[in-house]
Structures are given as structure tokens and as C-alpha cells.
């Protein structure tokens, strides 16, 4: 319960953290850490502009995305088992993430804008390739521990696994990290800051959303980032110190380290050309497969 609340509260912080890292590398001071919170508060007070082309799908998209991502939080272990866990909860989590993609893409297509169509097209292409990577990465962990629930994956392993199967875990960690970059639309797959529509994926899909709907989208995408970082933290660095608070703190620390790493990648690498993105995402599947061969041989 606490980890879920923490997620709801802290998710927008990650974007601020990444921006600070990037600013540091660029020699700037950067935006305040809490900027996204202020942005959200401001957007919530604003009115919306709705295109005459749109249908209820336009608003239903962000609404469904937000609802599914908040529900996902209930399935995420962090420093302790999640609020809800049952065999196969990882499949429900991935199913909900697919629903998020479908809803966002349809909301983008609803405007009839060619730019948003382009972003939507790229989003589904990348998503379709990311899906097997995600499942295969989880498959590796399932083979290792023989449990099929996220919380049990967290509970049944310790950091000592890095001694016996460090290579496998490293491969999975890299795979998951690549997927995190792709799914939360960061460099080198997508650039959250660019203002040239042709090079964007996620930002271009939400061009027409404004006011509270945009707030829902921004919040939802920070939740998505949070979910990705927590998955890496809880599945690959499961701390079991004996004290629930310490576990939680350690888990959170890893989440922030992962975020810093994202900022580091963003600061030091260039965006890939769109034609190379499938390879980038495919690479994560390849890494997971390699790890899978190592564990089931």
C-alpha cells in the first residue's frame, strides 16, 4: 500500500531528476526538481481545446491509460510484496500496458492529424517489438525461480543471486533497461524535448491534448517510467535486509539510480535514426533470449 502511494507521489519526480542530470552535463542549472508537479497543477486548472474532429475516444484514451497505470502500481512489489499478487500477475501488468498503448494510439488517431498518425504508427511498431522482449526477460526470471508472480519473484530471490548467476542477471538488466528507454520514450529511441514533430513519437501523439487531459497524459507517462524503473529495482535488486523500511529505502534508491542512468544515457548519446530503432528494441529481445539459453541449457 505504501509503495503504491509512494509511486503515485514520487513518479513525477523522476522526470525532474532526469532533467537535472541532463542540465548538469550541459553545464546548466536546469529546471526545478518539482517542475512537473507545478506543470500538472497548472494544467489541471486550465480549460481544454477540443478539435471538432474528435470523438469521446479522444478523452477516453488518456483516462483509460491513467486508470490502467494506476492499477499496474497495485501489482508492483517495491521493498515488499505488492498490494495484490497472484500467479500470472505479470501477464496482467503487461496486458494493461498494452491497453495503455492501444488507448493512447487511438486517442492520437482521433484527431485526424497526420503528425499524430505518424507518431501513433511508430509507437505501435516499437511496442510490437518491445512486447516479446518484455516477456522473454520475465521468462528468464521465471525459469530461475520457478514462480510466476512479480511479488514472489521479489520475495524468492536475494542479492546473492548476483554471485551465482550474475551474467544472466546483467543481461536481463540491460534488456530491461533498453526496454525502459524505448517504452518511456527517452533518447535514443525518442526525444521528449524536441519540438520537431517529425522526430518525435510520444510527444507528437499528444499534440492536440490540452488542459486536464494533457495533465492526465503527462502523469500517466511519468507513472509508466516509474513502473519500468521499479521493475528493474525489484526484480533484479531484491533487497532483503529484514527491515521492511530498509528494503523500501534500498528499493527506492535503486529506482533513483536507474533514473540517473537514464539521464546519463540521455546526456551522452544521440537519438537513433528511426530506421535503427527496431534494431535497438530487437536487441533487448536478443539479450533476453541469450540469457534464457544460459538458464535453461
Amino acid at each position: 500500500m505504501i509503495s503504491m502511494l509512494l509511486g503515485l507521489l514520487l513518479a513525477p519526480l523522476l522526470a525532474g531528476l532526469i532533467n537535472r542530470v541532463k542540465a548538469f552535463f550541459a553545464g546548466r542549472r536546469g529546471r526545478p526538481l518539482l517542475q512537473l508537479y507545478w506543470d500538472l497543477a497548472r494544467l489541471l486548472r486550465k480549460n481544454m481545446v477540443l478539435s471538432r474532429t474528435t470523438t469521446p475516444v479522444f478523452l477516453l484514451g488518456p483516462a483509460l491509460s491513467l486508470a490502467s497505470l494506476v492499477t499496474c502500481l497495485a501489482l508492483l512489489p517495491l521493498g515488499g510484496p505488492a498490494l495484490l499478487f497472484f500467479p500470472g500477475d505479470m501477464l496482467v501488468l503487461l496486458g494493461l500496458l498494452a491497453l495503455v498503448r492501444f488507448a493512447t494510439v487511438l486517442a492520437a488517431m482521433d484527431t485526424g492529424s497526420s503528425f499524430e498518425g505518424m507518431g501513433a504508427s511508430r509507437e505501435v511498431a516499437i511496442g510490437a517489438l518491445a512486447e516479446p522482449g518484455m516477456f522473454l526477460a520475465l521468462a528468464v526470471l521465471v525459469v530461475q525461480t520457478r514462480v510466476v508472480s512479480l511479488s514472489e519473484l521479489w520475495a524468492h530471490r536475494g542479492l546473492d543471486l548476483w554471485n551465482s548467476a550474475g551474467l544472466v542477471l546483467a543481461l536481463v538488466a540491460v534488456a530491461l533497461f533498453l526496454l525502459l528507454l524505448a517504452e518511456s520514450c527517452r533518447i535514443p529511441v525518442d526525444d521528449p524535448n524536441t519540438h520537431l514533430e517529425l522526430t518525435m513519437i510520444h510527444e507528437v501523439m499528444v499534440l492536440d491534448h490540452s488542459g486536464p487531459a494533457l495533465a492526465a497524459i503527462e502523469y500517466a507517462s511519468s507513472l509508466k517510467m516509474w513502473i519500468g524503473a521499479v521493475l528493474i529495482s525489484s526484480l533484479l535488486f531484491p533487497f532483503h535486509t529484514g527491515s521492511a523500511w530498509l528494503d523500501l529505502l534500498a528499493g527506492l534508491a535503486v529506482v533513483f539510480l536507474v533514473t540517473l542512468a537514464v539521464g546519463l544515457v540521455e546526456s551522452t548519446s544521440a537519438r537513433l535514426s528511426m530506421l535503427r530503432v527496431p534494431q535497438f528494441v530487437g536487441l533487448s529481445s536478443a539479450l533476453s533470449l541469450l540469457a534464457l539459453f544460459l538458464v535453461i541449457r
Partner: protein
Amino acid sequence: MLLAGMLLSVAILVLGGLAAGVLARNCPERAVALAVGANLLAAGIGLVIALLTLLTGASQMTVLPWSVPLGTLALRLDPLSAFFAVPTLLVSGLAALYGRGYLAGKGPSSWLWFNLMVASLVGVLLSADGLLFLLCWEAMSVTSFLLVILEDERAEVRHAGQVYLVATHLGTAFLMVLFLVVSPGAETLAFPRAGTLPPTLAGLAFVLGLVGFGTKAGFVPAHVWLPEAHPAAPSHVSAFLSGVILKSGIYGLLRVVTWAQQPSDWWGWVLVLTGLVSGILGVVFALAQHDLKRLLACHSVENLGIIALGLGLGLLGLSGGSPLAAALGLGGGLLHVWNHAWFKSLLFMGAGALGKATGSLQIEAAGGLLRRMPGTGGAFLVGSAAISGLPPFNGFVSEFLVFMAALELLRSVHPLAGAVGLGGLALISGLAVACFAKVCGVVFLGEPRSPGAEKATETRRAMLVPMLLLAALCLLVGLAAPLVIGVLDAPLGQLAAGADLGPVRASLGWLAALGGLVLLAGLALGHALSRRPSQPGMTWDCGYSRPTARMQYTAASFAGPLTEMFSFVLPFRRHGKPVEGFFPDAAEDHGEVPDPFNQRLYEPIFRGLMRFSLRVRAFQHGEVQLYLLYIVIALIALFIWEAL
């Protein structure tokens, strides 16, 4: 008692059809009403009986006297046949209701074929004798062929009919051999008893069944008839063909599996790989299609692939000694049979309504139809979410079971198969999301791209109601998942002793609850957002102030990144006049993707066959004397053969 009831429902179907056939010329309206009424009545009776059979697990058999050599009129109603009877009758009833509105008085005599098609499919499910089975199977193929070519004034419909007829008969040829091989004695073609075939014979039967029934089910590479025949048929028939008749292939295959003493390991592998190839290629072909019904037909290949994948994982669990994996895989495959029947017939009906309203099935000509046809559009959206395997709809439930089967194999007896199934199914469902995002986005959202789409209005109620009912069913199965899987117990018991879905019931409960919660919260949040103050505006298109509908992203561009990526299986044909120079003239660009299997496999084969036949044709002169000579030569040859 139950069996008699089922036969009654068959009789009602046949009588209704015959009556429609007789009355079609003189009072067509009464004929249609009679046929549709018979369909609904038969569906009502049959559904109750099938569900009772499923819930009680009862099995009834009767042998009626029949004076046909080799044949006995052996009929059996057991949970497995009842399981397949449910979608048959439910979809036939709704399709009849829809078809009445769709045909709008045209072709009243076609109802004879429709009713006979449904009746013969129920006959296939009930027969426990090879000859009877083949007769019903043929009747089903022929009647559905006659329905496919209903609009035979169009050349492509005639071509589609031809392809369908050839494909289905090639499949039937294998089935004849199958029944000859497995029949317990020389005098009879009766089905062998369950669990009696020794491994070698069972393996042979499995291969024959896989080819014969796989042709009907549309497994790659025997899928080529599917994207031809289904778009050609009128939509209520496509709905039934795609939603139900394909499944008769799955039924046949499962029936063969029940005969074996013990299914071998390689059966599972063969099914897993077949399913994987069909699933991935099906959805990739679908991505490249521009005709809505063709696209849906390709998705049938994909979904039948998912079914095969599930069944294959289940068989691997069964042979590897993991009853839970067996239950999950077989159960997931079976449940997907039902689910696919609901959402695929819904989608075909939606496509038909759309074609009627806009005058075209071309995806690129549509657009903005959700505003103009909210009922059809809403139902189609639900169907799309369901077929893409998204929570909280029914497609997610069956894919969840198949995924769980893969995970179960992964952690127990067959890690490699589990990994293959998991990765493959993930790719398939990811691509399916992409494909249906394309369909929904381009067809129903945005602005209309053609005058036809501009003027479209909501479809008539007779067609809308069946769609809404099916959409409700898609949602209901998703929300009541833990209850629904209760119907799987009895047929699972026939396929795998000791298979029990109990362990996942709690998971399904959570899945349904979370899915429902997301849907409710999403709807509430969406409603709250729509209540916020807003002002109407124009879609922002980079400052360009006069956007036209033609500036929208097209379906071909939308699918572009993915079709490009899979260009090694998609032989893209492109022609036209490219844009050249600094001040280009009018340019054009056409592209289409022919089926590679048609192009590289079947066309050469049939060309060779044609050449051979032309040569053989020299024997056919049309002169009676020569024919008599042939007969005499044959006789003498036989005599010599006997004499030796």
C-alpha cells in the same frame, strides 16, 4: 434425451431451410422469416442442450439403422462436441438475424443453403462414424461454397469460390484416408474408441488430420483460400465461416487426439510451430491488407494459430507429465475457440455494416465513421480490443491461459517450448494491437476520406442488435472469466485426464476484477474530463490553417514501419509514376501485397498441374468409340493382372 433435443434442432434447421427454398419464388418475405425463425428456434433449443451437456459432462450415443455400405448412423453428443456446438448455434442465430437485414430481401433462396450449412456443421459435431462425418463435412463445404458465390456476378467472387472449392476438397481427400486408416474393422468406418489407437497409427492419424483439418482451419501454408473466400461471401456468411466453420477443423483435430492412447511429444511441437508460423504470418499479412474483410480473414489465420499454439503447449504438458500445463494450454486453446467466434463474427458483421453504409470496404476510403455510426463503431472498437487481447475483454482471458501454459512449461517440463510459445505469442499480440490500432484509427476516427464515408449513416437495427449482443458477450466473458472457465472442465476431461483449471481460478478472478476496475475508472475519468470546460477548435496541424481529410495518415503509411520490417515475408509490389524533378507532374503510387505462398508455392504447383492435365487431355476426344476402347483396354489389363 439431450441428443434427441439436438437432433430436433437440426430438424428444425433443415425444415426451415427447405420451406424457405420452396417459398422463395412466390412469397420471399415469408420464406426469409421462416428460415430466420427456424434458425433462432434451433439455436435456442440447441444452446440449452449444449450448455446442459457441458455442465453435466454427460455423453450420449445412439446408433440408428442405416442401409449404406460401410456406414452406420452413429450419433454422439459429448462435452467436446457440445463445446463446439455452442458457438455454432449462437453465431448462426445472430448471423441469421443480421443476415436478414444485410440481404434486405435479396436472394431469399440462399437461406436454404444457410440453414443446411448450419445443420450440416451440427451434423459434423454429432457424427460418430467416418462416413456420416464425411457426408456432413461435404454438405457443409458445398453449402458454404454456394453461399460464398452468392454474388457471383463479380469475377473475383467466382475466383474465390473456385479456390475455396479446390482447397476444401484437397483437405477432404486427406480426411478420407484418415478414416480408412483409423477404422477399427474392414466392414465399417466407425470412429475408434477413445484412447485406443497405438502410437504409430495415432501418429499417422495425427498427420493426416493435421493436413486435412488444418486446411479447413486455415493453418499456414494451407491458409490461402481464407483471404479469398471470406471477403467474397456476404457478411453474415463471412461471420459464420470465420467465426465457426474454421473451428470445425480444430474440432476434428481434437477428436483425433482423443483417439490416441497417449499423445506423443512431437504432436505438441508440431502444433506449437504450426501455430507460431500461422499466428505471426497471419497478423503480418493482415497488416499489409487494405480491404477490411480481407484483413479480418488474415486475422482468422492468426487467431487459429493462437488456438493451435495453445493446444500444442497443452499437448506438450500432457506428454511431459504436467497436468496443470496441459489444462492451461488445452483450456486456453479451447476458450479461444469460443472467444474468436464472438469477436470475429462481430468484426465481420461490423465490416458488412460499414460496407453497406459507405459503399466500399477499402480501409483507405473510410474515416470518421465513429461519429456517423456510433453503434457499429462502438461495437467494432470493443471487438478490436478483444481480438487484440486487451483486458478486460474476452481475448485477454484466453491469451492469459495460453501465456500461463507457456510459463508453466517454462518452469517445469519443457522450458524451450515455453520460451518459444511465450515469445511468439507476445510478438503476435503486439502485432495484433498494431493492426487493430490501424483499422480503428483509420476507419472509425479522424475525418472521412471519401464521399461515401462522408454520407454514411448508422446501420439498420436488425444488423446493429446482433453486433451489440456480441460486443456485450465479449465484455461479459472477460468480466466473468472465473465462472466461464467452468464450461471447460468437461471437454478438458475428455482430452487430458486429471487436467484441472482450479489453480488459476483465483488469478482469473483478480484479472477480471482489475480489468473491470480499469474500465470503470477509465470511463468515469473520461466522463469527468469531458465535463471540464472546453472550447471547440481545429486539429493543430503545424500551423497549416486549412487541413483536408486527405492529409491524414493513411493505413498503408501507418502499417509502413512494420510491413517494412517484415518485408522478407511480404513481397511488396509497387508500381506507378514516382515524383520526379523539382516541379513534379501528377504522380501516382500503387502498392499491393500478394500472398507469398500463393505466388511461390501454389501457383507453380497449379501451373505444373495444368500443363500435365493439358497433356493428358489428349486422351479425351469426345469420340465414343475411343472411350469404349479405353474401357476394353482397362478390362484386358485387369484380366492380365488377375491372371498373373
